[in-house]
């Protein structure tokens, strides 16, 4: 009997928590389907279904264009990160000497430094190297900022790959690059999944670097496109459009998450636990 009561309390707590967490989202989704004239309390959920707000948000954001920009920069960054972070981790994990240990800590130190702090000197560096402001410029920073975590994670995983496999390959005359790309790299698949998910997630959602480095409206990614709605907060009539924009912004990742839920959960857990 006591056990039953305890269980009921647990379910009650969980449901209460879920309601509190999900309520803002429900109201946002429900309001995004309303027309601007609908002044009834936002708490009466889903009483109207109109796509007006979505149409307005869709055109105002130039959604298709922004989506493509987001996709290109995120995809491109993640591919480069996987490539150069595995490469960097290879000697750090394999060479057992002080110099590799120092490199390891050197990269990790980058993990704790916030981007806002160094953004002006970085912008100057871009100027000095004559790097123009295009939709691809933020990618340089996405890659650089992802390096510490990715290298760290790959190093941890690579230490779990037995050296003996490589010793055999060496005996059979495989070159260094061949050993790396055909033996070690395929064995790191769990780490790669984790890197792609954790880094892809923050890069897709980041508005800060594109806000600083992209000047042309047509080159905005989705999150930075959202910034233009900041002023609309003052005008209650615009809220429904803003909500529709929020849903449009979050939708792609939610869909990806629904399909790859297991990989997401494992990837995030692996990223933290191995590290």
């Amino acid at each position: 009997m006591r056990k039953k009561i305890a269980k009921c309390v647990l379910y009650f707590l969980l449901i209460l928590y879920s309601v509190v967490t999900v309520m803002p989202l429900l109201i946002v989704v429900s309001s995004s389907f309303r027309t601007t004239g609908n002044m009834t309390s936002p708490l009466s959920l889903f009483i109207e279904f109109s796509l007006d707000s979505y149409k307005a948000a869709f055109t105002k954001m130039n959604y298709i264009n922004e989506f493509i920009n987001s996709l290109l920069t995120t995809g491109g960054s993640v591919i480069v990160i996987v490539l150069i972070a595995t490469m960097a981790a290879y000697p750090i994990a394999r060479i057992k000497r002080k110099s590799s240990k120092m490199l390891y800590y050197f990269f990790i130190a980058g993990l704790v430094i916030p981007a806002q702090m160094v953004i002006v000197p970085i912008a100057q560096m871009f100027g000095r190297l004559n790097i123009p402001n295009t939709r691809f410029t933020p990618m340089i920073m996405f890659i650089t900022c992802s390096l510490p975590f990715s290298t760290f994670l790959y190093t941890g995983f690579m230490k779990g790959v037995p050296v003996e496999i490589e010793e055999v390959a060496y005996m059979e005359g495989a070159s260094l690059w061949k050993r790396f790309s055909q033996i070690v790299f395929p064995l790191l698949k769990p780490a790669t999944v984790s890197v792609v998910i954790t880094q892809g997630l923050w890069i897709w959602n980041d508005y800060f670097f594109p806000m600083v480095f992209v000047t042309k409206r047509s080159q905005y990614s989705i999150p930075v496109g959202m910034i233009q709605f900041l002023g609309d907060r003052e005008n209650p009539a615009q809220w429904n459009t803003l909500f529709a924009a929020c849903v449009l912004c979050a939708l792609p990742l939610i869909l990806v998450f629904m399909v790859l839920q297991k990989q997401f959960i494992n990837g995030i857990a692996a990223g933290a636990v191995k590290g």
Partner: protein
Amino acid sequence: MKKKFRGASLVMPDRMYFFVTPALVLFLVFWVYPVLQLFYYSVTNFNGVNYNYDFVGFKNYARIIQEGSLINAIKNTFIYTVIIVVGSNLLGLALAMLLNMKIIGKTVFRTMSYIPALFSAIVVGFIWSYVYMPGSGMLAALLNAVGLDGSTVNLLGNFKTALYSIAVVDIWKNVGTTMIIYLAGLQTVDESLLEAGKIDGCTEWQLIRKIKLPLISATITINVVLNVIAGLKSFDYSFIMTNGGPGKATQTLMYIIFKTAFNDQMMGKASAFSVVSFILIIAITIAMLRFMNKREVEL
């Protein structure tokens, strides 16, 4: 003997270090060098654009201390960090423990608490601006619905509550991630140990305190470290939701650095803030890792 063979490095020669080059070049050019430049700019009156600047010694540092903005920003950042570290970890751990039991609808609950972590900070900022909006926001509507006067509640506009309110937003967004990491940690706890504990007559609380918590101490360390780092980096919600206001109530270190550099065009002063932040962050990280390593061994 085997160790020596590896040390001789026939299989792992030094030219392996070439593999580090691309990563190292990017890291040095776009991260390390800019950080070092901050130290240099902090003793100039550079405005970020015009390169005819003068050296002003430690004037920038003196100014940010005298104005009180440095102490204020440090204080806000610390409060914010403590709230999200305690909040996310307690809530995340409790949730993970609940979801680690045999419960119907486990995946649904897990998914729901994780969904906010998928959102961009800017979307989260908008959603919660609405929740807190005085008069017609969600909180006000809820209060009205239960018969209280919601129109007077303005959490973001109040000096005393603004910082706590944006910290809550951060917890809302990140607790799902913390929970997933705890869940992974709890799943490594050996069932037989818990069984043995039960046979010896441990209460549920003793099982948690004496068996589960010590066994997941590494996970606790990771989550605390991750949340401390996130707290020290806090910028998003001050920037999106409150603009550092009301007054200076939500100005965190990163917010004031950004504002001083971009809005006030005072790169020298912003760099002074940055240097102080840099030293603080590094000191806290090192202290934290030392402390945690020690604790883990003791447990």
